[in-house]
Every structure is written in structure tokens, then in C-alpha cells.
């Protein structure tokens, strides 16, 4: 044909031309999942070979089966629940206290310059002080009971939260508030009906993030000194060389973290369905 004068050379794609190897190129969902499962599977397989093959001593790496068995025994005896309940209650108390105080203060700090000038210096000082460094002092003050753990969580999250929330409220566009004034709103209406609802998605996000940190602080505090709790349980298991129980503790802490995080996600969807963060 006269039209097709171009030379169609036979181009053979190289292996590196495939979609998977292109930067930033999305890949099919199925392929994505199989890659994710592979990484998980490889680690699990290595574990099975190392533990069941007795290549590593059971004191260092117990078999998945023995961990499940010990976990089941601890659940039946009630030991696991006791420690779990102790940790969860402590977290909720410390975190609730921090949130109840930090949310209003953070909003005020982000909205009024005089509040910012008043509290920011203190917060910035405490914020860079790791809570773990304060544990000995807090033990001295409150003993090794629940009060001390609540104090650790409170100090660890309150100062971060107040800072993060003030940032959320400071970043709410001024025009959003001004548009309310041009509709006849008074200052009180602007704060309650515009500023606070507009800050909600950011507040939720930060609460979710700091709740994750609260777990870290609690476990550290329980490892240092405690009478019950998951951190204490792990420490006791180490002393008795009950490695299975250590793994049980780790798995439970991981699962609890996952559950709290996911419930926050669900809560955002239920309470703030209008927010961009709740998805479409």
C-alpha cells in the first residue's frame, strides 16, 4: 500500500519495559496483593523453618504453634485479660485527660495570639523533653501504681496534642470565618459554628496519631516498674525465660494498636461523613 511507507521494525519489549518496573506506574490490585503477601509469607516461612527445624533454640524463637498454645492457656486462665484490662484502662484514662484539656486549649492557642504567647514557650520546652526521662521523677511523686502511668501518658500526649491542635486551628482559613461575619454572625457564632466544626477533622487525625504514641509511653512505663499490665507481663516472661509469653504480649499489643487505630477511622466516617478525610 502506498500509504504505509513507514518502516515498522519489529520492536521486542525487554523485561524492564513491563509495567511493574515503571516508576510511579500503578499496578493491578491482584498483583499488588500478591507482592504484599509474598513479603509476609517469606518472613513466616523463615520463622517456620528456623523454629520447627530447630535451627534456633526455642528460648530465642519459639514455634508459632507453641505461642498459640501458651496464648490460649493465658487467655483461659484469665492472666492475659487482667494485664490487658489494666493497660487499656490506664491508656484510656491518661489519654482522655490529655484530650479533654488539650483540645480546647489548642483551639484557643491557635486562634488567639495572646494565648499562644502565654503557653507556647512552656509547651515548646516540655515537648522536647522525652517522657521516658521523666519516669523516675514521676515514680518518686506518684509511686509505681496507676497514677504514675496515667501521668506518663498525660505528659507524653498532652503537650504534643496541644501543639498539633493549635496548628490545626491556626491553619483554618481566615476567609472561612470572615464569610460568617458577612452573613451577620457574631464572634461567638463564628467560634462555635465555624471555627470548631472546621477544626474537627484535623483534631480527630491528631487524636488518632497521639493515641498510637500513648501505647509506646505506657509500655515503657510498665517495663520500668509496674504491678500489672502488658509491659509488666512481657518483662516477667523475660525473667522466667517464657519466650512464648513475650511473643503473646507483642502480638496482643500490636492487635490492640491496630484496633484502636481502625476504630478511630470508623469513628471519623460516622461522625464526620462530610470531611475529605472520611473518603468519598
Amino acid at each position, binding site marked *: 500500500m502506498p500509504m504505509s511507507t513507514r518502516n515498522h521494525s519489529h520492536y521486542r519489549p525487554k523485561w524492564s519495559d513491563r509495567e511493574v518496573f515503571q516508576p510511579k506506574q500503578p499496578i493491578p490490585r491482584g498483583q499488588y496483593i500478591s507482592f504484599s503477601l509474598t513479603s509476609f509469607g517469606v518472613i513466616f516461612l523463615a520463622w517456620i523453618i528456623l523454629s520447627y527445624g530447630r535451627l534456633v533454640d526455642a528460648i530465642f524463637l519459639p514455634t508459632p504453634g507453641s505461642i498459640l498454645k501458651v496464648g490460649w492457656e493465658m487467655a483461659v486462665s484469665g492472666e492475659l485479660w487482667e494485664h490487658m484490662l489494666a493497660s487499656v484502662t490506664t491508656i484510656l484514662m491518661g489519654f482522655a485527660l490529655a484530650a479533654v484539656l488539650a483540645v480546647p486549649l489548642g483551639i484557643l492557642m491557635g486562634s488567639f495570639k495572646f494565648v499562644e504567647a502565654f503557653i507556647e514557650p512552656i509547651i515548646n520546652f516540655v515537648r522536647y523533653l522525652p517522657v521516658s526521662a521523666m519516669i523516675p521523677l514521676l515514680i518518686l511523686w506518684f509511686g509505681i501504681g496507676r497514677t504514675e502511668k496515667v501521668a506518663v501518658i498525660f505528659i507524653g500526649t498532652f503537650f504534643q496534642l496541644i501543639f498539633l491542635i493549635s496548628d490545626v486551628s491556626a491553619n483554618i482559613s481566615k476567609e472561612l470565618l470572615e464569610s460568617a461575619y*458577612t452573613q*451577620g454572625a457574631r464572634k461567638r457564632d463564628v467560634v462555635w459554628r465555624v471555627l470548631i466544626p472546621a477544626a474537627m477533622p484535623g483534631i480527630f487525625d491528631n487524636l488518632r496519631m497521639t493515641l498510637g504514641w500513648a501505647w509506646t509511653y505506657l509500655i515503657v512505663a510498665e517495663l520500668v516498674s509496674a504491678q500489672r499490665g502488658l509491659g509488666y507481663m512481657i518483662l516477667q516472661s523475660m525473667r522466667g525465660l517464657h519466650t512464648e509469653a513475650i511473643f503473646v504480649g507483642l502480638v496482643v499489643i500490636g492487635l490492640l494498636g491496630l484496633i484502636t487505630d481502625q476504630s478511630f477511622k470508623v469513628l471519623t466516617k460516622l461522625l464526620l461523613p462530610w*470531611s475529605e478525610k472520611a473518603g468519598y
Partner: protein
Amino acid sequence: MARKKLIIENVSKVFTTARGQTIEALRHVNAYVEEGEFVTIVGTSGCGKSTLLRIVAGLEKPTSGRILLDGKEMHRPGADRGMVFQSYTLYEWLTVSDNISFGLRLRGVSRKEIREKTRFLIEKIGLSGFEDTYPKYLSGGMKQRVAIARAMANDPSILLLDEPFGALDAQTRTIMQELLLQLVEENRMTVLFVTHDIDEAIFLGDAVYVMSFRPGTIKEEVKIDVPHPRSPEVRTSPFFMDLKRSITAAIREETIRSIEASKADMRRTSPRVSGWLSRLRGRRIL
């Protein structure tokens, strides 16, 4: 001659920056809007046109001069000067209807009246069926329609718009201009509209104020004698083209001045850095 609804009387505004420099944004601006008139203010970016509108809205205080609405001096923002902003200022947590009725609910208007008024306005802006939709599901053009309806819901004495279509694509913008014009014509509204888009200023305005750059002053006032309702064909008429040519020329001078001014600002901004640079050059490091 129609009554002067809004009078901007000898308004000047000087800003002081954090470093203590002063910027004269507006100098002795005098302008007015007659009852039922659509006035546009056009100027290059940074000329102070938005500041002027914000002063009219009561969101900013003039350094001197005053704003008179129906003969009364204005000091604070209020629902009598409804405003539409360039950025999307819809309340994300409220549905389209609840956004529109925000001001009505603040004033405790009866539910029945709210429902009727909201439904009427939603139909007018062509968003029937979106009453219970949250803003996150709306396009930019739809959001600005709701913002216009929201300002109209309070029956303002004058409607203020600050480049409301600036963030929209050219096609949507044209449609929105026609919709706004239709709403204004049907409801006999008084409007003050700020833009940098000359086409927009001429197509919408009964009068166009052209502003100069820093200090912002009224450089020219142009009457646009095109009767309402205006059809989209106006945009391509010879009359329109002539006006556009002359206003474009006037603005061009100001834009060039604004570019020169911003160059000068940049040179001024960081004497410390330029000090370091010259020292490094002196030591032949750079």
C-alpha cells in the same frame, strides 16, 4: 439619576509590615454604586482592589475615609453586605441547603421561611437535587454558585464579590458570569464586583472603575452603556472590543509598574544575604 446606595468616601489605607515598613495600599479613593447598579473594579494584582472591597465589607478598617451604605456609616461587617470570596468558603460540614440558610438560621428565621427561601435559591442557581449534598462532592463552579446563593439568602443591600470566578476554568467562568448577571437582573440587586479580568469587568458592569497600582487610586471611570438583559453576543461586539482595548492599555501601564515594584522589593528583601554573597565573592569563594 438613581440614588447612591454605596459611597466610598476618600478612603485611604496604609499597612505596616512586621518589619515596620509601610505600604500605601489605597490613596483617597472615591467611588459610588447606585441603587440597582452593577459596578466592577478592575486592576492589576496587588493594586489594592481586594483591600478596598474588604473595607466596604467591614473586614478591614480604612486608615482614613469612610464607607456609607444608604447614608449610614459602616464600621463592622454585616449581612447587609453579603460577600463572595475567591477561595471556596463553603462550610464543609453543612449540606448545600444548610450552607445557604446559615445566615437565616443565625437570625432565627422560621423553618417554613427558611425552607421556601432555600428551595427558591437552589432552583435559581440550577442545583436542584443537590440540597443534601456536602460541598466535598461539588465542583468549583457549583461551590461558587452556592456561595452566591448563600450571600443572597440574607437579602443584602449590596452584594460584594472578590474575584469569585478567579479559580475556575475559562468555560465555567463564562457560564458563571452569565448566571450571575441573570440573577442580578431578575432580583434587581446592587453589586460591587472586583476582578483583574477586563472582559469580565466590561461584560458584567454598568460602570467600571480602573485602579492604579500602589498606591491604589481610581485611575478611570468608564460607563458601559449596554442595556440589560445582556446576551453573550455582547462580548464580541465592536463596542465591547473598543472598550477592552482602551482599558487594557490603561491596565498595562499599571501592570508594568507593579512588576518593576516587585523587582525592587526583591532586591530590598534580604540585605544580609546579599552582604554575605558580596563578601564571599570578595574572597573569591563564589
